[in-house]
């Protein structure tokens, strides 16, 4: 005989304001098998949990139903509470009467009625719950970090520091990411390269860290603690192990007119190239789209000059397979393309640049050796206009709906650096709002205004028109003085919105993690679990989760590392016991379930059975590997005989819920 306890939570007034909790407890008390039904103000609090625990002990309960918030919130809390007093944690069911009842309904009468029905469904289900014991599966003591920007680097270093092997997969020929392209960092104005490159070198020298540069993740299988990842090492036509990075080949390569991605296409590189002097690994890469040898079979200069024979024109893409316990996603961001914003004349005028291009223009290793010159005629600009929020905070049809977060600060930084270095330059910043939350951030912005006399104008630029004399007419409104301005600028800098890297979406599909509509990875909980994805064993680091500046990215990178280390420290993890299982007596051995299983958790065995007529027969039956099964239930529906069922969500349990709701 079942002895079921029902516990109705008020959640302060969150539930109690719209649901008559006493009535719910009263009504559920009359359900078959229910021996105690109580309400309490905060069931998840310690005293609330104690109430549940005491009831379990006192009434020797065989199952409990908590009518409270979403099971996604506190299911684990109550399972742990039950387990602590000896009740199997899987004999706990949650009726969600907050998110799915009190918060969405206004009338007490109907909301209470619904809460009672939800409670009844949970009682009906808990009647059929079976105690489940979680199995264990081993954890592979190795982590994968996808993306080698500052986020990935920080995560990898921290994980390696804790003594675990880490692989970094970076799609570009070098790690470093966007930060490597940046000149100075706010709010301290220290040189980005000076703080980043030592970390890059540390990565290459740490024996626990293995960098797969110029590589991509092509397949992910498995589950937390036991992922099998296929990494595609793209052919770079240079043997990484032999190349010393001397750079002779890049000097001699006759193909010198390839737009240099690292400098945002503001100058050229050769077909065989090393992205920048501090690249890690410092290994040359041949760009097959421009290499004459690879395109026409004629040239071979690099091969001739290479003293170590590292050039290999026959190199093929290579696929390697590796096992990992944890995966950290650090795929980062890119500035958006500005093609559709005709009004800013980005495509028409070389002197309208993005902020990232300005970084390169001002960088000592950039195309002008650190002297700020206009890209068009290499003259000093004397009037510079910055435009904020280009493509950020837009309606979906016009751009990105979110604030890109970093633009206010880097624009202040640019304005300040320019005024510092070229005091004869006038700098205008058109802003909608200046957003500077962050340590020393507003002080920094104020310095730009007060100390460096940067002209901040509240208003948006409406139109940018290149003129025949090389000047650029910037038409904008000044909302505070209520006038329309025209500025004859020499250089216009657009603070382009940032968006997640394009590789993130297919990666999310491979990892079975979720993304929001903007293609940022969704964290498991917006406040309490900001660096974990909802998929166990997958962690998020840096701008792939949302716009972030460098200090935040590094903080999140370390946080993701801490979470990954926490996982890798365990020798085994508890498996989800809500897995499929096959009733061998009913199994037909038809292979339907095997075909729909995404994890390959089902295999077939020939097994001897005693038949009802006392003969023995050998039958082919399905067998589920509970460590591999993730409990989706696809097999249960594919199985025509109903031999396949799912623990925790069995056919009879779900039907009992259906019955309770429909009654």
């Amino acid at each position, binding site marked *: 005989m079942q002895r079921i306890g029902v516990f109705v939570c008020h959640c302060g007034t969150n539930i109690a304001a719209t649901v008559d909790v006493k009535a719910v407890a009263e009504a559920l008390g009359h359900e078959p098998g229910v021996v105690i039904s109580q309400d309490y103000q905060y069931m998840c609090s310690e005293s609330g949990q104690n109430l549940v625990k005491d009831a379990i002990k006192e009434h020797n309960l065989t199952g409990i139903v908590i009518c409270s918030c979403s099971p996604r919130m506190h299911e684990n809390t109550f399972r742990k509470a039950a387990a602590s007093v000896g009740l199997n944690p899987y004999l706990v069911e949650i009726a969600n009467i907050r998110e799915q009842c009190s918060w969405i309904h206004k009338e007490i009468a109907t909301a209470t009625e619904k809460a009672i029905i939800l409670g009844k469904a949970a009682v009906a289900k808990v009647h059929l719950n079976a105690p489940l014991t979680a199995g264990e599966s081993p954890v592979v003591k190795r982590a994968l970090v996808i993306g080698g920007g500052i986020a990935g680097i920080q995560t990898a270093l921290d994980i390696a520091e804790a003594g675990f092997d880490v692989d970094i997969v970076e799609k570009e020929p070098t790690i470093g990411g966007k930060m490597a392209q940046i000149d100075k960092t706010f709010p301290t104005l220290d040189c980005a390269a000076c703080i980043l490159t030592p970390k890059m070198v540390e990565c290459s020298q740490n024996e626990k860290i293995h960098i797969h540069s110029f590589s991509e993740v092509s397949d992910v299988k498995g589950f937390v603690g036991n992922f099998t990842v296929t990494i595609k090492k793209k052919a770079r036509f240079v043997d990484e192990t032999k190349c010393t990075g001397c750079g002779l080949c890049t000097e001699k390569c006759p193909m010198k007119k390839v737009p240099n991605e690292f400098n945002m296409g503001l100058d050229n590189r050769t077909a065989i190239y090393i992205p920048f002097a501090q690249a890690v690994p410092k290994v040359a890469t041949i760009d097959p789209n421009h290499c004459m040898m690879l395109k026409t079979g004629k040239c071979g200069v690099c091969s001739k000059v290479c003293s170590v024979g590292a050039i290999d024109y026959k190199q093929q893409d290579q696929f390697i397979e590796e096992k990992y316990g944890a995966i950290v996603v650090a795929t980062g961001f890119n500035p958006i393309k500005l093609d559709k914003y005709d009004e800013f004349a980005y495509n028409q005028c070389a002197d309208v640049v993005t902020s990232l291009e300005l970084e390169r223009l001002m960088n000592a290793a950039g195309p002008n050796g650190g002297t700020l010159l206009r890209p068009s005629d290499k003259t000093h600009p004397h009037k510079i206009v910055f435009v904020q929020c280009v493509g950020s905070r837009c309606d979906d049809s016009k751009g990105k709906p979110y604030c890109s977060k970093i633009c206010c600060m880097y624009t202040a930084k640019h304005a300040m650096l320019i005024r510092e270095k070229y005091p004869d330059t006038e700098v205008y910043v058109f802003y909608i709002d200046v957003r500077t939350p962050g340590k020393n951030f507003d002080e920094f912005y104020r310095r730009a205004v007060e100390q460096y006399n940067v002209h901040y104008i509240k208003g948006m630029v409406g139109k940018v028109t290149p003129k025949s004399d090389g000047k650029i007419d910037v038409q904008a409104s000044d909302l505070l003085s209520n006038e329309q301005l025209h500025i004859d600028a020499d250089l216009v800098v657009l603070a382009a919105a940032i968006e997640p890297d394009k590789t993130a979406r297919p990666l999310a599909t491979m990892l079975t993690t979720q993304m929001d509509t903007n293609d940022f990875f969704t964290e498991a909980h917006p406040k309490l679990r900001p660096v974990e994805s909802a998929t166990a064993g997958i962690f998020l680091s840096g701008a792939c989760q949302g716009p972030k500046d460098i200090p935040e990215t590094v903080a999140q990178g370390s946080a993701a590392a801490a979470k990954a280390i926490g996982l890798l420290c365990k020798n085994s993890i508890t498996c989800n016991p809500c897995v499929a299982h096959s009733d061998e007596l009913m199994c037909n*051995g038809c292979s339907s379930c095997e075909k729909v299983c995404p994890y390959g958790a089902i295999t077939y065995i020939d097994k001897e059975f005693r038949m009802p007529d006392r003969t023995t027969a050998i039958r*082919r039956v399905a067998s589920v590997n509970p460590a591999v099964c993730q409990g989706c239930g696809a097999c249960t529906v594919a199985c025509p005989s109903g031999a396949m069922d799912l623990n925790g969500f069995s056919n009879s349990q779900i039907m009992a819920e259906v019955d309770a709701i429909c009654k």
Partner: protein
Amino acid sequence: MQEAMIKRAKELLADGTVNRVIGWKKGEFFYDITPAVFETAEEIDADFVFDDFTSANVSKYLVKESKKEGKILAFLKPCDTYSFNQLIKEHRVVRENVYIIGVPGGPKLDIEKIKAKGITGVLGVKNENFTLKIDTLYGEETMPFYEAICGKCADCKSKKHVIYDELIGEDGDVLDSNRFDMVEKLENMTAQERFEFWREQLSKCIRCNACRNVCPACTCEKCVFDNPNSGVENKAASDSFEENMFHIIRAFHVAGRCTDCGECSRVCPQNIPLHLLNRKFIKDINALYGEYQAGADTTSRAPLNTYDTEDCEPSIVHERGVE
């Protein structure tokens, strides 16, 4: 044909290739013919029959028979070979234990259709130039041959044997049949008309389970409707809903696996056109996921066990046909 089959069966028994033969034998009347297993030449001589009434599909019997000791000879008509292939795909039969001789298919006759003409006391039939000469206790009667054939043969989809070890007689081709005409006609009715049509048909169901028991796709060790733990167990139709449930679920369970052999409708004592449910699924699968004939081969994936990322959404149901 019958002689050739008997001769070959006796040869294979004699040389030890097989130790049993599955075919058909006469019942009380010459037209109530049932599948039967023969172990000796004498039994074959006495009872083996292959004529206009041997319409039963013997493939399903091989689920059990092929797991016994020794090899069994099976005479399979074209439609039976599709069922057999499908059973191989689902690992339900042991191919090595069956020696298959392909024999020509129908059209087979349906005694109910003859009786429906008011002809009783039937003793024998003969097809002469597509006129059926019927010998009865009360003298000879005639009717057009095609009016007496089985429903499933009227919509024959294929005369081709998709699997065999040897053939007696000619192999045929896959035919262009009009088998989806009736499904289409129903689709073009209004929802109310369709509901009334099926209400009338399914209300006749007496839950004898003949459709399930004869179906070569329904070979479950234990049917969900017989399993007290499945939550849907019911042995008899106790009200209007249960036959809906039974027939929809049964059709769904064989969707993508049903070879359209037509046995369900043939054996239904209440003459419910059950094959239309299966054909509806087959028609939808063909239209939405590409042409698929269950049993045509033993390796392709069943349409419900695979998917395409570009599959249509269920809202397509709203966009097609009549509401």
